[in-house]
């Protein structure tokens, strides 16, 4: 194990070596998982925005690993190189699309992400950007989805916790299938872009977000002076 000052120095040098971005503080990686990209409404547009965001690493898991042959070494290096890991996916059966589970199973190894010597993710943040098919009121004890979205994401939340990562309030789009028609999608996508840039520029107020169950467009805790 390396002493903490060593990590700080390495961090500093990496910062100095990266392209000049005056406010840059946090490095962000977005993992996108959608098995039927061409059927997607919300996620496709969100992915387009994320892929285009300057200074944000974007990975299309189904595009990069169409035969599920996930390279754990590459993925671990990617996680090591970034401070914030954002997983973007549509909710399928109250869980992630299958490749994201495969990714977790292979990449979050013992000795890397958890267990003895598994401290490589410590202090990093995990955030989820998820779209659900049901309207917001469906995700209530009285609604047909019965549980809040945050509850369905508990396995990921606990995964983050076990890896020493901080789990941030997820960015949620409810009623995603109707969103293009009623104009919410445009706001959601635009807000997604703001979110990514704010995280990149360290203008996202994590503390405020921690007080929320989920965050949505129109009410993102972005600090003054941010976008």
């Amino acid at each position, binding site marked *: 194990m390396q002493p903490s000052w060593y990590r700080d120095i390495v961090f500093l040098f990496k910062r100095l070596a990266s392209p000049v971005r005056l406010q840059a503080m946090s490095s962000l990686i977005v993992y996108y998982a959608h*098995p*039927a*990209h*061409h*059927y997607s*409404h919300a996620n496709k547009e969100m992915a387009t925005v994320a892929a285009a965001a300057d200074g944000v690493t974007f990975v299309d898991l*189904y*595009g*990069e690993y*169409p*035969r599920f042959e996930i390279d754990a070494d590459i993925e671990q290096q990617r996680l090591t190189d970034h401070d914030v890991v954002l997983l973007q996916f549509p909710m399928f059966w109250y869980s992630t699309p299958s490749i994201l589970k495969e990714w977790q199973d292979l990449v979050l190894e013992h000795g890397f992400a958890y267990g003895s010597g598994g401290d490589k993710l410590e202090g990093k943040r995990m955030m989820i950007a998820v779209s659900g*098919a*049901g*309207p917001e009121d*469906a995700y209530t004890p*009285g*609604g*047909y989805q019965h549980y809040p979205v945050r509850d369905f994401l508990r396995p990921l939340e606990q995964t983050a916790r076990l890896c020493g990562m901080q789990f941030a309030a997820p960015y949620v789009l409810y009623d995603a*299938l*109707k969103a293009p*028609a009623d104009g919410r999608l445009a706001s959601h996508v635009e807000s997604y872009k703001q979110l990514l840039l704010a995280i990149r520029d360290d203008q996202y107020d994590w503390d405020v977000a921690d007080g929320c169950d989920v965050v949505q467009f129109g009410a993102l805790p972005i600090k003054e002076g941010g976008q």
Partner: protein
Amino acid sequence: MDGILLVAFLFLVAGVIAVPIASRLGLGSVLGYLLAGIALSPILASLHVDVISIQHMAEFGVVMMLFLVGLELEPSMLWAMRHRLLGLGGLQVSITTAAVTAIAMAFGQPWSIALAIGLVFALSSTAIVLQTLNEKGLMRCDGGQASFSVLLFQDIAVIPMLAFIPLLALPELQELIATASSAGDDGHASLSLVDRLAGWQRALVTVGAIAFVVVAGSYLTRPIFRFIAMAKLRELFTAAALLLVIAIALLMVLVGLSPALGTFLAGVVLANSEYRHELESDIDPFKGLLLGLFFITVGAAIRFDLLVANLGNIVGMTLGLITLKALILYVLARVFKITGADRWLFTLGLAQAGEFGFVLLSFTVANGVIPTAIAEQLLLVVALSMLLTPGLFILYEKVIAPRFVSAQEKEADEIDESGKIIIAGLGRFGGVVNRMLSAAGYKTVVLDYQSEQLEMMRSFGVKAFFGDAMRPDLLHAAGIDEAEILVVAIDDEDSATELVHYVSHNHPNVHIVARAINRHHVYELYSAGAQDIIRETFDSSVRAGRYALEALGVHPYDAERQVRGFVKNDQAQMVGLASSYDPAVPVHENEEYVRRSKEYTARHAEVMKGNSARFGNRLGRGWVPPTIEDLEAEVAKDADED
């Protein structure tokens, strides 16, 4: 000429009738041949056939057998068994010799005769024991290995014995021989080049001859065999193999060494060669026939008049000898920690006297060591003990081995060689398969008949052997009997089908993975019995198609699913057409096949153009989102329930 044909006819008829019957009765081939010989002996006697001279010729079978044994033994293996070879073998020969000598002296024989008898009886029968062990699959177990070590030591020990025996000669017998003409002279002596040389010269020539066999075997055989392989004539290779064995045997005789030892040595030298399996399968039939002939002559040479006259005496001596040898073997097995059923196999298997006993006896008589009258009785003892050996093996197999079943099974696991794989054809296709399996840690045996390619492969450490995989005997030598998997990757379409057909019918336990040249070949391989059939260019073509889709901007995962859909469709089509395919009817004359094939092609075109709803559905199924109406219905239902 007629005489030779008649004798050959008699031997063959006796063997062909007696051996299958003996095998069916579980007696083993050796006893079958011996019984055939006994049955034949009155006829041969009435025809005045010289059985003994035929036997001398047939002894060459033993020489060939040792060559084959050598081929199976890599030098490193031989080195690994040196302790047993010298310890077990050396003690068996010396203790048995001493014990027999002592007993013979106790019966009033002078020490020189007694010692000669001891040497004759110390030897066991390589021919019977190895043949039986191989036949019963006991060669690899501990008892079999120990037996082999002792037999090998004995075969080597014969050489110094032949040098030593003349020193025991009795003066009065020598005079007798001197007065008689040298008509009965042994063939070995008459050919020798070294008789007139001084001791040191003799030693020099001997060492030189052995060095020549080793050096020539290592460096000369490969270019020679490659040269012969260029002719692409199968029988030429057989001729070359025979020439090799006979030449070495002749060289050994010329310098006064045992031909069996020489060919064994040559076999060991060639054990690492790519021509090993080819040599094995070429020599094997000759060995089998000559050994069979040898056993028949042993049976035929038993002089029943003498046996009947001295029945009690000879039977008593035979049983006494077997008991004595078994006792010594048992004690040695205990000392060398051979346990369980293996100890009994070792004890009972080697308790007889052997064919080298015949050689030594005729040699002792020729050199005036043992009087003819005694020698003739001893000859009967040797023959009778050999005749009883198959019975001892049956005793082992039926009575003793079953008691150790659990122990045997445990050992079988140790011997097991993690699944043997034979790859026929080491071209671009078989080469990749071989590389993959080897990388995964499996042992493969590779067969090909392209000499140049093999040498290249061997330089990369691949276990590759020269030979035509179409030959059943070569497949046998490569170990098809124990193989789990055969990969057929030979280029010729019809040969591949034929090979699959042969193996699936004769070795139904072997899983066959076969390369098909095209769609029709798939059907042929399927009806021939291959389990896994791979079209040689299909997978790579599909991948090329996928790359093209990706280059067109299709999302890689969509492209992947297109490919999966295409492959699935294509396989379904192939299975669908298989029932219409008839190997007896050319495709273009098979109306049903042509009609259905057209049907599939038309449907396929629709699918590829995207006009088929079903295919599109299958591709997207599972990720097609519900419509807004679906959602509203869901919410409505939910409201109703509340």
